[in-house]
């Protein structure tokens, strides 16, 4: 029995990130409970749960992106490709939508595989060949199968709550006529508010970075899912290179032709620093392509 290789490194990094997020959240909730804000906390969570439902609504996401649902006869080939991929993935076929934009891109929306929608831009359909387009659809299908919308939203629920506590705590605690230094045992309630706000701010900052890291790992996972579904990691790799404009950066002119023009000096050192990297929701395309190439070697 043949088995696809598992990426244990990616798995353990993902588990580590989720665990750290859990610790940050648990500490935050513990801190709030210690202060005795049980009911407030409950209300915040209920409001957050309502927000989830709101933000997860696929129709909202679609209209926000200017996407239009595609009828079966509008793009029969695209639908057939999707039908077969979902049949192999063993999930219901998501609906297809199109966004009228020259920027090549695609996204998945929806709470569960049952009401998922996968949208592609017209630019993506023009730029990519059929194999690459299929690989991108398989990537989005993997997001649907991995329930990434739900995972990221739930991971961000307390983070959003912390952000609001930070904002309101700071404006409430910071308002008023200056800080009145307490003469006796009474603690200034505004000082407590400021401390709560600062803790919430720290929780927000830490969870933000962790969620971004989690999001990057999920991109790697979806890339992997696409490679396994199509059996061709190279198709997604070339699609990513095209979408990111990486191919345009590879020169087409002969080395001898450009040497006289001191070409080596104007090649931009475009590699981004790691400080910027930790804020990104997506891993750098070069890293994703490298991972796909590694997978292709393992699959051979």
């Amino acid at each position: 029995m043949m088995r696809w290789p598992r990426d244990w490194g990616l798995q353990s990094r993902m588990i580590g990130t989720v665990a750290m997020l859990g610790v940050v959240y648990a500490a935050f909730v513990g801190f709030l409970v210690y202060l005795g804000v049980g009911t407030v906390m409950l209300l915040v969570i209920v409001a957050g749960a309502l927000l989830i439902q709101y933000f997860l609504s696929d129709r909202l996401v679609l209209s926000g992106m200017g996407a239009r649902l595609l009828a079966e006869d509008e793009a029969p080939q695209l639908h057939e490709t999707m039908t077969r991929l979902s049949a192999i993935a063993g999930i219901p076929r998501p609906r297809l939508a199109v966004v009228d934009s020259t920027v090549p891109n695609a996204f998945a929306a929806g709470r569960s595989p049952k009401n998922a929608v996968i949208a592609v831009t017209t630019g993506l359909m023009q730029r990519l060949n059929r194999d690459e387009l299929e690989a991108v659809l398989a990537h989005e299908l993997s997001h649907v199968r991995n329930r990434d919308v739900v995972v990221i939203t739930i991971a961000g629920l307390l983070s959003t709550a912390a952000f609001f506590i930070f904002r309101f705590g700071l404006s409430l605690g910071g308002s008023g006529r200056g800080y009145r230094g307490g003469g006796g045992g009474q603690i200034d309630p505004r000082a407590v508010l400021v401390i709560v706000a600062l803790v919430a701010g720290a929780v927000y900052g830490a969870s933000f970075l962790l969620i971004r890291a989690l999001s990057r790992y999920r991109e790697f996972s979806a890339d992997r899912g696409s490679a396994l579904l199509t059996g061709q990691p190279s198709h997604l790799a070339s699609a990513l290179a095209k979408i990111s404009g990486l191919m345009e950066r590879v020169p087409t002119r002969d080395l001898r032709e450009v040497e006289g023009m001191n070409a080596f000096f104007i090649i931009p050192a475009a590699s981004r620093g790691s400080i910027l990297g930790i804020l990104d929701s997506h891993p750098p395309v070069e890293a994703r392509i490298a991972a796909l190439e590694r997978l292709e070697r393992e699959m051979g």
Partner: protein
Amino acid sequence: MGFREALDALLGTGRIPEADTERLFAIATARVTMQAALGLEPAGSAALCFRPIDSARAARVRGEIEELLAFGREETGTSYRLETDQYRYTWVVLEDPDFEDLVAGIHLISQTLIERGYGPYLLCAVYAFDGNRRAYWIFTFKRGRYYPFVPVDEGRDSACEFRLRAMLERELPIETSVEEWYPLRGIPL
């Protein structure tokens, strides 16, 4: 959603499910009812559709299957051909007037692919029937069930498909949600 699926989702490792061939053989007995009640006869051909994988190992498996097919041609007189459709899926088309041989051939090829680890890439098996019109029974490996497909020009004869379902409900594991009855254009049968 079971615990295993939930864990896979959390880890982002949703896997491709295995093929389910438990009820693939059911078509062998269903054929009698098709003849008696609907006047549909086996058209003498059946096919298996799967996603080709580009790798040295996949090429070896393909060679192995061709050997099996060549062997079957000598033993049972089942002729075969391999085709690639416009979506680059591979079709193994079998032709034999003996319906049992067709069923056995499809089973053997799918079983071989599953044993070599390519079960997740099996899309469907298709059996063709002829009467006053051409009808297909399509078996999807992920759901392990059959559904009818009666193409008419660019559309399909749903009334006929529902009749087929009504007649064969007892004998054939039929896909219950009709949303999954996806048409398959350009079946090379």
